[in-house]
């Protein structure tokens, strides 16, 4: 990437380890990436690959056990108490389960105003106006529905309210953790379009975590693919989807079914299941399921290497070089 612009978020060697010394589970095992202002980075991978944990570690909802997280040049991992609370106004998170992310016993207006009340930035009529504005921005009628309880809304509406709440403090970075995976297709389209609109309006930068490859491609400028706690490939979304370099990315894309009867079903389906993160394979973590694996893959762990502008892959035998042979 061009170094002229400072990334908004800079993550280096982030690790998250769960459990005690005897049963160590490294959910995130050394992840590094940058997110630049105004872009959307998609983070895809299958369940258990550590994508959600990465998002939670960025918000310090789970404690990272190593590495650095810098937002606008400020180191996050060493901050505590009030400093940490302060930094949290710069980044916000939207969760997967829309219904459980809203307190069922609070009124919608109060839920959206919660960040404002925490920080006491605006009060009285100004607060009311801001809340109404946020609610109308996400398509909830503040007059008719503002005083209802959260439990009276459907999943899609709850997700809208969550978005309004997350925007109240005008954060720079919004982390979306599987935010549309619990929604129906027609509602999902509404929320994705809304997200794109709000991103433009509020100048947001997004980290979009999801397992659905089509959804991720739709919203992302760049995409990072995770497997067993590590990023195996990262690149501009169109390039990455068109010509994946990592064999895992290729299998993943091959397994994604296009809603088109004429699209070919890929014959080669990835066999087996991901190994346990309690006991990851030596060297390249994908080697146990990779058709191209050699001895080198078992001995040496591949690092992320730039093979085209902005396109990095962690593989000893990227597919384009393999094809040339």
């Amino acid at each position, binding site marked *: 990437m061009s170094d002229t612009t400072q990334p908004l978020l800079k993550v280096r060697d982030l690790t998250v380890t769960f459990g005690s010394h005897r049963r160590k589970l490294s959910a995130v095992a050394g992840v590094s990436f940058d997110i630049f202002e105004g872009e959307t980075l998609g983070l895809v991978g299958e369940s258990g690959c550590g994508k959600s944990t990465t998002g939670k570690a960025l*918000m310090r*909802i789970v404690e990272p056990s190593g590495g650095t997280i810098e937002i606008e040049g400020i180191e996050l991992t060493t901050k505590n108490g009030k400093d940490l*609370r*302060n930094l*949290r*106004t710069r980044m*916000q*998170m939207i*969760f*997967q*389960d829309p*219904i*459980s*992310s*809203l*307190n*069922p*016993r*609070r009124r919608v207006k109060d839920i959206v105003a*919660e*960040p404002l009340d*925490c*920080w006491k930035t605006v009060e009285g009529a100004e607060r009311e106006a801001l809340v109404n504005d946020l609610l109308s921005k996400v398509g909830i009628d503040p007059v008719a529905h503002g005083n*209802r*309880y*959260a*439990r*009276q*809304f*459907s*999943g899609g509406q709850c997700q809208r309210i*969550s978005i309004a*709440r997350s925007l*109240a*403090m005008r954060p720079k970075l919004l982390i979306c953790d599987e935010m549309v995976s619990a929604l129906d297709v027609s509602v999902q389209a509404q929320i994705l379009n809304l997200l794109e609109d709000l991103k433009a309006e509020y100048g947001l930068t997004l980290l979009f975590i999801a397992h659905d490859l089509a959804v991720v491609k739709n919203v992302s400028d760049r995409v990072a693919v995770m497997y067993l706690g590590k990023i195996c490939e990262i690149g501009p979304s169109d390039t990455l989807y068109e010509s994946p370099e990592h064999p895992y990315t290729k299998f993943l894309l091959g397994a994604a079914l296009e809603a088109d009867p004429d699209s070919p079903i890929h014959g080669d389906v990835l066999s087996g299941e991901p190994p346990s993160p309690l006991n990851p394979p030596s060297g390249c973590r994908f080697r146990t399921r990779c058709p191209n694996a050699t001895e080198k893959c078992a001995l040496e762990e591949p690092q992320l290497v730039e093979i085209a502008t902005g396109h990095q892959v962690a593989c000893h035998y990227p597919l384009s070089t393999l094809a040339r042979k």
Partner: protein
Amino acid sequence: MSNSMMYVNEMVEEASAHDRPERKRRLGILFWICVGWLALNVLAAIFANVLPLQDPLFQNYVSINAGPSLHHLFGTDDLGRDIFSRVVFGSRVSIEVSSGAMVIGFGVGAPLGMLAAYRRGKFDAILSSVMYVFLAFPAIIATIAVLSFWTPRSLFKIIVVIGIASIPVVYRVIRSAAMTIATKDYVVAAKVQGATDRRILMKELLPNVAPIGISFLLIGIATVVTLEGALAFLGLSVNPPTPSWGNMINESLAILQTNPWLAIFPSLAMCLFLLCLNFIGDRLRAHYDVSDGKL
């Protein structure tokens, strides 16, 4: 087929999940009858002094062991005291002991339980193991033991002992209720928005734990009323001649053959009181169960 009923419920929820106005759910007439009865009991206990009742301690030797009559609604006991008035005054002890003990139990147990559920970690581990040690003692035996040695007995001591004994029980119930709520995304979301721990406890946890706490409080009161009754029956509660439901039943034992009224009325009063408490507690719990927004 409980399985299929669950499935119908799911369908109804799915369908009604959309555009539902705040639906009024009825608590039922029986609920309000119970509330009314309890209120009557409590009011009678509070205003017993000003109500036109006979002196509960006045011994009228002219009518001993009399059956119910217009003059003595519930009859009289072996010392000629008016049973109706003694039952009303006796409820004071039960109500004072149970509410006092619950103030102590909830005052200490509930905040600790919520804090332990929210904080987790070492704080929770240490506190919980202490509480579980206390829970291992059978409460009634421990209470009897303490009250036997801590003399002279007074209402205050009884309240303190039962109150302390109830702390671990309250702690356990509130902790487990708060635990399921503390793991919800909205609690995480509040944290992420920069809410302080205090704010999260008050705004997110408390309103959702409260309904469970209230229904348990009612059941707790009922339990203490029984416990006080048992203690009084053993002669370990307030000293005679002060009436309490428990010691009235105790006194009635000797003359059960000649005057069953002395046993029947305090027992009936206690029974109804407990029944109402348990019913209200149960009803409220079901009423406020908005688990995950499903009504």
